[in-house]
């Protein structure tokens, strides 16, 4: 919340998990990865429409199609909000496709607000 944190315009996967009080599953974390952009949606076609690469998806849905959508869109970090639990099918699919999942008890709105506040940028 301080000006100092606001100046940082990227976060690591671990720091994002910390900010949203989340648990990490799926593919092993790429500790080098810097997260800069995020997009929040419960509509998979809206996600598939984007032509930006390397974004983080924030969603309130927890089903295998969320992971499939991430796979097709080259998204490798998915934040599942609202305390929805991922099935083992989702986690396996994520591992196979090198996608890391963060499950958080917070709502999509809260996750978005917290990350925005940390300097994560919207794509539009």
């Amino acid at each position, binding site marked *: 919340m301080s000006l100092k944190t606001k100046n940082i315009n990227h976060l690591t996967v671990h720091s994002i998990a910390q900010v949203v009080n989340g648990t990490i599953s799926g593919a092993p974390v790429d500790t080098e990865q810097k997260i800069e952009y995020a997009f929040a949606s*419960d*509509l*998979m*076609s*809206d996600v*598939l*429409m984007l032509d930006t*690469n390397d974004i983080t998806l924030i*969603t309130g*849905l927890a*089903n*295998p*199609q*969320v992971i*499939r*959508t991430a*796979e*097709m*869109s*080259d998204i490798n970090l998915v934040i599942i909000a609202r305390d929805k639990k991922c099935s083992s*099918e989702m986690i396996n699919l994520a591992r196979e*496709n090198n996608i890391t999942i963060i499950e958080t008890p917070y709502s999509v709105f809260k996750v978005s607000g917290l990350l925005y506040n940390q300097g994560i940028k919207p794509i539009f």
Partner: protein
Amino acid sequence: MNIKFDIEGGNFSSAGLASSEVKRLLKQLNIDIKTIKRLVVAMYEAEVNIVAHAYQGEADVEINEDHIKVVFTDHGPGIDDIDLAMQKGYSTASEQVREMGFGAGMGLPNIKSHADKLNITSEVGKGTRVEIICYLNA
């Protein structure tokens, strides 16, 4: 090279298998990642449409020197007004499909914007044929 995939209507847990396999294969063939993304996003939308709107179908993938062609054919209700179906936001998706995160009416417009060519023909009460072409050096 030709590959054929069966697509089961209504089965959301296997939706995307064909697109996923093709993505893996194209990566192995060292096709550039932008082209891969354009093709697989278009394929995935067409695949999900069969799962969401039809009973049963298949994807026939043809990988050529300069382009990839994928033809989706299904047995299903067909599309009465293709121009209407192509409009952003038009959807007849069921409640169950919407709960899965689909039904925004953006799939067909998405295919059009990602693929280099899109051809749809349909017969009401019989089924739909969706042909997608992506050029490799576009």
